[in-house]
């Protein structure tokens, strides 16, 4: 790893730590947190500070330090966490997130920092940071506490010291012999042991040291050097600088100082084995937990594991359950290979059926188990790319906070299903549309405080973001408990913009769907927050690009829900293989509600060439897929054809006319956009079992493409 990689891995870790931090705040907001939540948040900020220090990111260190100090106050019970403080912490968390991004991208530091630091200082009070550490992050690389070593001036002549070890020195893993060896490395060095106080063997206490050593160094060894060697034991020994010896040092030989450690009789060096035995009255040792107590920490961990929220911590923490980091390219290559596997599997299935082998034949049985294995591999590989929506939800929490601050509306943000896993690319590309929808919910969805009070609602509005797996797709809902869509206004505006005519009769869902039309959102509506020139039509087209659909549901006075339905993966799809006008095409199963064999009596002409089919008391517009793509003229008789009932984004049903249903199977999605740009009505292509290429159609797009003709028909559905 070179420096850049270290940096990169630091920032990756920061992401995880920030997630853990935001998590902690979420839990605190629900009042369901325990002590460990606070510890986890503290640790997250603390680790960011530690890592940032290693990379000299001073802005980040300074702020993290302030932040951490305040968190520590709460952690240690010196400060009470009230709503105001939690709010400040959240802002600090956001700021820390920004600082991390700024540090990563080399951007200018975040402007909000000084203000937040001032707020933190206020919370910490006058004694604030002085209590722990200096204001600026100038902690030294290695703190040397020379203390009572009497370090004052650099000494150029040799030093003589009397060294006596206190019991604690051994217990804490230091040894005189090791210290002496380190002294030896400084320059010439001599040591003499005074054994006069060593008791008889019977009275020997191995934990205490009865020997005093006289240490003498040559003149090139300074007190600084000595202080460094004894840095860790300064409180566990007495080290007295006796006198400064003369440079000629005649006493050395006189007092018979040995210059070899081996001369210290081995038996006088305390053996560590004895020392590790707890001795009564030997201070620190006695205070250590006995072997029997060792279960304690384990037990407490098990306990905390039972707290449901701990799961999140384990996930947020790199330490969790053994993970490896894999290059995304490798995974994508694997996904592509699995795609090929699916295609080959389909081809093989075709060959086997061409052979006319019975389903009990060895080859069929073998193929079936191969197929199920391949299915498992596919699922496994897909799941590698899947990741929980949680980090994205956390970003949204921030959007809510910002939107709440900008609009002055009090908002409670609730999330459900944050561990729902979605393809990584899908998650990434959902960020923008969701951001927009969340802002919308706060800005347009929720009423102002007064209006809420008038409606008898809590002054605090609620925005809910939820994710769930539903029949092979991911459904993400953004809802608010606001006043619902003001349909009169929407309608008036649509008329004003020429999207509908004043005489059009529209059902409430139809009016709601107008919001998605291009050109609906207007400059007049632009507020500081959600009006950024991006309308819901852009949101919808983004979601379409992901193979998803978005729909809207609103109850006056109750609120509005936007529902996004997405495929689990962008790589394969469950499709219905159909024939139309001699072409083989694939329709995504997710779009198909049901299939019908029409009776001619159920088909009605409605003038201007349009047709509807009556199904369960509903008149459903009919669209011929063959005619849409220009394969043929609209068939006069629909009897021999098959109708696929689909539901479009605007909750309307349409019937697509095809000739025949061949099969239902998984197909690998091969994008066409790189080579052909976007083709109306076509989502992508795939390779079928017989090696032929088939186009995957986009039913919503077909519906919209033939929309002009259908606007008149819309009313019919409702009229019946």
């Amino acid at each position, binding site marked *: 790893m070179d420096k850049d990689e270290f940096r990169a891995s630091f920032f990756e870790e920061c992401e995880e730590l920030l997630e853990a931090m935001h998590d902690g705040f979420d839990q605190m907001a629900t009042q369901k947190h325990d002590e460990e939540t606070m510890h986890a948040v503290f640790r997250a900020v603390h680790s960011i500070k530690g890592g940032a220090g290693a990379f000299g990111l001073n802005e980040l260190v300074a702020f993290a330090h302030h932040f951490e100090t305040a968190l520590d106050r709460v952690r240690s019970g010196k400060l009470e966490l009230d709503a105001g403080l939690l709010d400040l912490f959240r802002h600090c968390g956001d700021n820390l997130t920004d600082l991390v991004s700024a540090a990563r991208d080399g951007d200018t530091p975040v402007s909000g920092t000084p203000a937040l630091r001032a707020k933190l200082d206020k919370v910490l009070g006058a004694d604030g940071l002085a209590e722990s550490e200096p204001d600026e992050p100038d902690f030294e*690389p290695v703190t040397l506490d020379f203390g009572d070593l009497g370090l004052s001036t650099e000494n150029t002549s040799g030093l003589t010291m009397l060294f006596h070890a206190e019991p604690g020195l051994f217990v804490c893993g230091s040894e005189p012999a090791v210290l002496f060896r380190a002294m030896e490395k400084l320059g010439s060095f001599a040591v003499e042991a005074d054994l006069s106080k060593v008791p008889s063997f019977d009275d020997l206490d191995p934990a205490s040291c009865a020997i005093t050593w006289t240490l003498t160094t040559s003149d090139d060894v300074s007190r600084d050097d000595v202080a460094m060697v004894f840095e*860790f034991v300064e409180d566990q020994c007495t080290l007295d600088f006796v006198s400064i010896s003369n440079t000629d040092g005649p006493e050395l030989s006189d007092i018979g100082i040995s210059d070899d450690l081996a001369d210290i009789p081995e038996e006088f060096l305390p053996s560590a084995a004895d020392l590790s035995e707890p001795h009564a009255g030997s201070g620190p040792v006695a205070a250590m937990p006995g072997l029997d107590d060792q279960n304690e920490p384990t037990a407490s961990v098990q306990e905390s594991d039972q707290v449901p929220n701990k799961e999140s911590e384990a996930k947020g923490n790199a*330490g969790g359950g053994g993970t490896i980091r894999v290059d995304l390219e490798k995974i994508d290559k694997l996904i592509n290979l699995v795609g090929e596997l699916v295609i080959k599997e389909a081809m093989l299935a075709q060959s086997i059926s061409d052979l006319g082998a019975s389903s009990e034949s060895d080859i069929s049985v073998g193929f079936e188990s191969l197929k199920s294995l391949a299915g498992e591999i596919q699922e496994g590989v897909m799941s590698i790319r899947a990741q929980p929506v949680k980090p994205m939800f956390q970003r949204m929490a921030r959007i809510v906070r910002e939107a709440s601050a900008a609009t002055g509306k009090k908002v409670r943000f609730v999330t459900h299903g944050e561990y729902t896993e979605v393809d990584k690319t899908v998650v990434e590309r959902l960020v923008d549309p969701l951001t927009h929808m969340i802002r919308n919910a706060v800005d347009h969805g929720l009423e102002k405080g007064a209006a809420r009070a008038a409606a008898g609602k809590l002054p605090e509005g609620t925005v809910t973001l939820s994710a769930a797996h539903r029949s092979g797709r991911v459904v993400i809902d953004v809802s608010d408990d606001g006043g619902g869509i003001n349909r009169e206004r929407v309608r008036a505006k649509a008329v004003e913009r020429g999207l509908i005519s004043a005489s059009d009769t529209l059902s409430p869902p139809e009016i709601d769907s107008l919001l998605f039309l291009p050109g609906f959102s207007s400059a007049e509506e632009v507020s500081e927050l959600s009006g950024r020139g991006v309308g819901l039509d852009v949101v919808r087209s983004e979601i379409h690009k992901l193979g998803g659909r978005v729909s809207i549901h609103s109850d006056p006075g109750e609120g509005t829900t936007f529902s996004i339905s997405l495929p689990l993966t962008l790589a394969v799809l469950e499709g219905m293989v159909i024939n139309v006008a001699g072409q083989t095409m694939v329709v995504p199963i997710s779009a198909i509600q049901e299939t019908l064999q029409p009776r001619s009596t159920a088909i009605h002409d409605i003038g201007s060439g349009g047709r509807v089919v009556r199904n369960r008391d509903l008149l459903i517009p009919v669209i011929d897929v063959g005619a849409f793509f220009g394969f043929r003229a609209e068939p006069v008789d629909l009897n021999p054809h098959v109708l696929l009932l689909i539901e479009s984004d605007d909750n309307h049903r349409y019937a697509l006319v095809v000739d025949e249903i061949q099969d239902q199977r998984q197909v690998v999605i091969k994008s066409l956009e790189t080579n052909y740009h976007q083709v109306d009505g076509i989502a992508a292509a795939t390779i079928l079992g017989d090696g032929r290429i088939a186009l995957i159609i986009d039913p919503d797009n077909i519906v919209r493409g033939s929309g002009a003709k259908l606007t008149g028909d819309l009313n019919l559905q409702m009229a019946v």
Partner: protein
Amino acid sequence: MGLQILAIDDSRTMRNLLNATLSVAGFDVDLAEDGEDGLRKFDATDPDVVITDINMPRLDGFGFIEAARARKRDRVVPILVLTTESAPEMKARARNSGATGWIVKPFDEEKLVWAIQRVAASGENRQ
């Protein structure tokens, strides 16, 4: 064989940095992610020197040191605390737990190596 070092830190960044610094210095490095993991590796590898962080999930540095010191060993393994903390009461607590030394993050590579060298019983002592 160089000295066997066990480095315990919950931060991946720190572990990476420690691993690099210590490996370059010629030590054999084992890494652990928290006190519990550290204890497991402490038991399994019998290191010459342990470097541990204080603030860690599951089992913190103090807990690790206390538990490590309660192990019966034929020698007391030096344990250096490497942390951003520098409060005297924290140091005292580490000392009471049995820590050999205290080094403040961010660490200076040379000084860290030198600190390890001077607390470690040299290789020949062990055989």
